[in-house]
């Protein structure tokens, strides 16, 4: 199945490259006879379950555990954290979660592998990330919530590197009041282990962190035939609970 998928991807990539639709990616090395070499591509496609069956639900100490992998903040990070007010978190206006939080949200995710890109689609917040495999670079001055992602395959692993994130007052996670900056860089490594999808994520952000931090997690295979449901965040309902907090600043 995996070999058949690899062949299918390679054939599609070859055809697309030959008619100029995509530049040959790193998986399409040329041999001396100009015959396309079939490089193995790990088959990671599918809908993946990141819910409570797969892992501990996210919270103030998951996936970042104090005393273990919790990031070491610099003075700027500590200052931002000390004045943080939960009420201003963008999620209460339905602003989507981004890396490194969205990967650990307890929802389902879909992986689609094309010859020149990998699509990571998240049920949470209806988000779609495109991981470019064709060597392109980010256009200058384009910063977005999900950033700009490039990737490549290393043996059985998909490596994704993402930068060009917008500044985000809660860009680290949903629980600890730590921001992330336009210098944030996230590296993800995905591989299959049996029927599970595994990932190790490493986060760098020299504006707020003293050193890189990382966590590992897994997804289970979704039930056969499961398709992602629309999230359609309701901005009114997203704000409803804010009244239940005692205001930090008046």
């Amino acid at each position: 199945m995996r070999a058949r998928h690899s062949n299918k991807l390679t054939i599609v990539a070859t055809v697309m490259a030959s008619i100029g639709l995509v530049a040959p990616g790193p998986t399409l090395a040329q041999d001396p006879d100009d015959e396309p070499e079939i490089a193995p591509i790990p088959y990671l496609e599918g809908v993946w379950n990141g819910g409570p069956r797969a892992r501990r639900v996210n919270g103030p100490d998951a996936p970042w555990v104090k005393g273990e992998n919790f990031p070491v903040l610099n003075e700027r990070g500590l200052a931002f954290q000390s004045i943080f007010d939960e009420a201003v978190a963008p999620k209460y206006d339905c602003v989507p979660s981004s890396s490194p939080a969205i990967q650990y949200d307890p929802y389902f995710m879909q992986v689609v592998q094309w010859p020149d890109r990998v699509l990571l689609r998240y049920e949470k917040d209806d988000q779609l990330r495109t991981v470019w495999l064709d060597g392109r670079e980010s256009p200058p001055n384009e910063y977005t919530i999900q950033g700009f992602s490039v990737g490549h395959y290393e043996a059985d692993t998909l490596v994704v590197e993402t930068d060009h994130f917008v500044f985000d007052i809660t860009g680290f996670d949903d629980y600890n009041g730590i921001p992330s900056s336009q210098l944030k860089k996230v590296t993800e490594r995905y591989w299959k282990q049996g029927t599970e999808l595994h990932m190790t994520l490493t986060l760098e952000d020299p504006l707020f962190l003293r050193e890189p931090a990382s966590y590992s997690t897994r997804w289970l295979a979704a039930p056969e035939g499961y398709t992602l449901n629309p999230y359609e965040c309701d901005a009114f309902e997203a704000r409803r609970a804010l009244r239940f907090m005692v205001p930090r600043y008046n």
Partner: protein
Amino acid sequence: MKRLLWTGALTLVVGIGLAISYVPALAHHASGPFYDDTKSVEAVGTVARFVFRNPHSFLFINAPNEDGEMVEWEVELGAAVSMRRQGWTPETIRAGDPIKAVGQPSRAPGTYGICCAQITRPDGSPVRP
């Protein structure tokens, strides 16, 4: 044998807990800033409406407060997309249904929010999708 009995008892307790109501966790924000996990509050009344949405569903209950005045309690539940996977639908709970919610009270004075609630019928029978 003793271990087997303990395992059986544990399974029974967990089973009863799941039968009462399994509502997915909040997962969108921490409950601590909003709700006081050192206290417990109970709302026993009738369902006013059930809002089945993302990022949170809410169950509204007309029930007396601690002073005996009728108020509208707002019970925060999980995301509809997660609840749907457990079999919940917008029709699982209907307006007018008798209901009981026990959970953590909201922190702001004068509000009637409840989090992390155990939801049953008033006689303790389970609410199931």
